[in-house]
């Protein structure tokens, strides 16, 4: 399981970084989403990996339990990254609709770069 989780985090991060470095807004947003998935899976692993264990202590008998804190952190992170993705999609849409251009770079002279596209 360690290998699976580790490689999942690695592949998601690598794909995310590749996409973030693209020139158009849509792949960049996808890349940011992939990175946030990677970090969510990574956060789970910070409380040590464990399957089938409840996230509660049992005070009557000694059973394995998972660390509940990373689960709470992941929930927070998911909510935040969901909201942020919605915001960035809206802003990117606004940028595309107002300048008819979805490239992420700004040009030096301060004019919209969409004329030659």
């Amino acid at each position, binding site marked *: 399981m360690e290998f699976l989780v580790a490689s999942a985090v690695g592949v998601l991060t690598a794909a995310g970084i590749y996409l973030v470095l693209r020139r158009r807004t849509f792949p960049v947003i996808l890349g*940011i989403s992939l*990175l946030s998935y990677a970090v969510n899976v990574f956060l789970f692993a910070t409380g040590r990996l464990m399957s089938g264990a409840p996230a509660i202590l049992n005070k009557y008998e000694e059973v394995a339990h998972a660390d509940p804190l990373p689960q709470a952190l992941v929930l927070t992170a998911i909510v935040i990254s969901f909201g942020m993705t919605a915001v960035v999609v809206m802003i990117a849409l606004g*940028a595309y609709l107002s300048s008819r251009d979805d490239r992420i770079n700004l040009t030096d002279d301060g004019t919209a770069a969409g004329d030659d596209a």
Partner: protein
Amino acid sequence: MNHLIVAPIILPALVAPLIIMVLRYHIDLQRIFSVASVALMLAISVALGFQAADGTVQVYELGNWPAPFGIVLVLDQLSAMMIVLTTVLAMAVVLYAIGTGWDERGANFHALFQFQLMGILGAFMTGDAFNLFVFFEVLLIASYGLMIHSGGAQRFRAGVQYVAYNLLGSTLFLFALGVLYATTGTLNMADIAVRVAALPETDTALLRVGALMLLLVFAIKAAVLPLHFWLPASYSNAPLPVAALFAIMTKVGAYAILRVYTLAFGPDVPATAGLAGDWLLPAAIITLVVGAIGVLGSREIGRLIAFAAIASMGTLLISIALFTPASAAAALYYILHSTLATALMFLIADQVMERQGGAIKALPPMAQSGLLSVMFFIGAIALAGMPPLSGFIGKLLILDAARSHDLVWWIWAAVLVGSLITIIGLARAGTLLFWKSHGLPDAETDAEAAQSTVEDNATSGDDASMTTTHNNGSPLPITVCMTLAAIIAAMTIFAGPITRYTEATAQHLFAPSAYIETVLKGDTE
């Protein structure tokens, strides 16, 4: 428990939804509530400042959960100073935005403004690393809205960059927190400090990785080279009053570096000793130099101030990176100064832009040219760190604090040469904007002015066409600028008491045992 501590966070959190839901279509009521809320926050912050002034640390346990398990807010001298600074700045910006009518040029200015304040004040008060992340996100998501306030193609495009860059920063923040939690098993900053000190020295590789990743995150916020790329485009394309408020946002990064790397990964902890300073100092020196060169090379007034802000962040971070009590005291004085000076310059730049657009070139004299040129002059002196204003004292303190450091000549050279280049850059801009305009022959200038107005309309879309119509001639904006300048002058006059306060703060920062004890002992009342 002292419930006043949580009030600066609760208040904007209540006022902002009220503004969105109830007062949505009543700009006058929005203004009243917004200003009243900021005034109340200012009063609360000052009251908290007096409570913290003697060096006592107060803890507020949210939900009454004891410290390592629940989230705590901590009020000490540093956080008290920062919230007073934030609310003073917020008061100036909100009055300025109302005076110029910036707040009606798009939807929800006041609500976003309140949320932004909630995030900033929360980030300064929290004693929990994950809670710091949450407040970062609160202040960022509000800043995304403020940054694209009133729209325009160029502003939206800059906004996309700004949001994307900061989302990457947030992801990195989560990775860093995950690593720290995996190695220490806690996210409370005081508890992290205890655990880090107790960690066996052979087992600190992962911890150092986490600490450095955290430093990267704060360096993005503080716009340290080479992570500063988001700043010039976002600040110069944001509405300039908003950019004035953003002057405190880079300081949130500086504050976080100062807090985390004195408390949790302090200079006395063998596992992480020197980790932050060794990386930060060279980066800060380069930041200062590049910022100063950027000032010299800017052709647009918003970018000019943005690069001056980067240069001042460089100066500030040099002082922080030395990690001695004397340098931290100097840095704290410089934080106060550079936040207000940067904000003042952004507001003056906005006044100039309202009258003739953002380009730095000789155009016919604008309205109130004399008054604005004097204000620009005062702001430039403050920002460049020339005597007699407080920037000079701040830089002098930093130079003095660096005297015993190994790299003292590099630091002195960077600060002094950087100041010189900044002065030249600001003088060039001021000359072109205010002085050369009087020597222009009339016929040519009219044609050029007409053409430049057309250009401005083309570049910044519908926004530039509004600049003339919204200039309602209210005396409030200039009054706000003058008040900021007066505060900077007062900081120069009262430099003695202020440096005594910052020195005491720095002493407590570098002896964090009282802070850690208070947080972990919990609230006994």
